[in-house]
């Protein structure tokens, strides 16, 4: 499926999907994020979307599933923005192999909020332009820039904090 087709079959459903997401999540920002995640998820399987007879209906179901996942997460976890990768309990960082710096970065990115993780990977790995990401997510470039900036800063700040922790441990030995 080309980007143009994607825009006409999927992105065109944006208002309907947003309405459903807003009803389920009761929060405008969360609903916006959910719909962007829907578009990113469907974009990642665009090769198979041509075989689906009702792509709009599929997008609607995907929206509901993502909203249900978000509601489940809200009940059991804190806001991912405030997650502190602590070291008191056993985490992957206790594994000596994972102390490898690039491995630490990988873990941090895996723990980013889904939308931020996808946007940072699309930009920094796959080399998408900001406008392309905005087109795919049905949003504006300033929203993409904001999420990209947040993701990069989170990775930077978390890595510096974890790295400082391990250096301190080394000094104490």
């Amino acid at each position, binding site marked *: 499926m080309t980007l143009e087709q994607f825009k006409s079959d999927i992105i065109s459903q944006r208002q309907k999907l947003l309405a459903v997401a807003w009803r389920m999540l009761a929060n405008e920002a969360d609903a916006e994020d959910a719909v962007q995640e829907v578009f990113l998820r469907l974009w990642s399987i665009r090769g198979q979307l041509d075989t689906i007879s009702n792509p709009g209906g599929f997008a609607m179901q995907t929206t509901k599933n993502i909203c249900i996942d978000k509601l489940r997460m809200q009940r059991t976890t804190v806001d991912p923005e405030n997650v502190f990768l602590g070291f008191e309990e056993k985490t992957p960082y206790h594994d000596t192999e994972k102390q490898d710096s690039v491995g630490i970065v990988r873990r941090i990115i895996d723990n980013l909020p889904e939308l931020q993780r996808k946007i940072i990977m699309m930009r920094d*790995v796959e*080399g998408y332009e900001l406008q392309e990401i905005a087109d795919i997510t049905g949003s504006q470039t300033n929203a993409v*820039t904001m999420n*990209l*900036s947040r993701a990069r800063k989170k*990775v930077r700040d978390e*890595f510096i904090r974890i790295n400082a922790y391990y250096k301190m441990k080394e000094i104490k030995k």
Partner: protein
Amino acid sequence: MKRDILNIKQLLDQYFEGQTSLQEEQILRNYFQQEDVDESLTEYKPMFDFFNEERVLNSIEENEVEIPGKVKFLRMGKVWFSRFSIGIAASIMLFFGVKFAFFNQKKEVSGQSIVYVDGKKFTDRKTIRSQTLNTLEAISESEDDVIASQIDILDSFNDF
């Protein structure tokens, strides 16, 4: 040199604000690929190393072609190899590599390991290892397969 570092720092500030172009991000990636990064910037290197690794893996996946019902083909540089032939070649290399390791043990690893992907040279062991494992895992049939057991031997070399 100081001016270069200043430029990189300015680019980095813009990068974290999401304000850099793709070309400017390539400048940052190229800078952090070198070994002698300025000390004030070393803490950013792992982040760019991660993205560079993922780009390499991504470019390999993009070069794969699956022909329905037939063996997967992989493009390395401008040459197409079947995964099967890569697997055979890799098995032969591993066999002699293992033989060498057991019968010619040295205290230090001499020489340099290199992998070329699309004409680009990588010398860091992590990239080389991940490239090798990806290819071997792709043609490995089962855990009882000889190649899978040789992957275990490859893992044990991490102790070097």
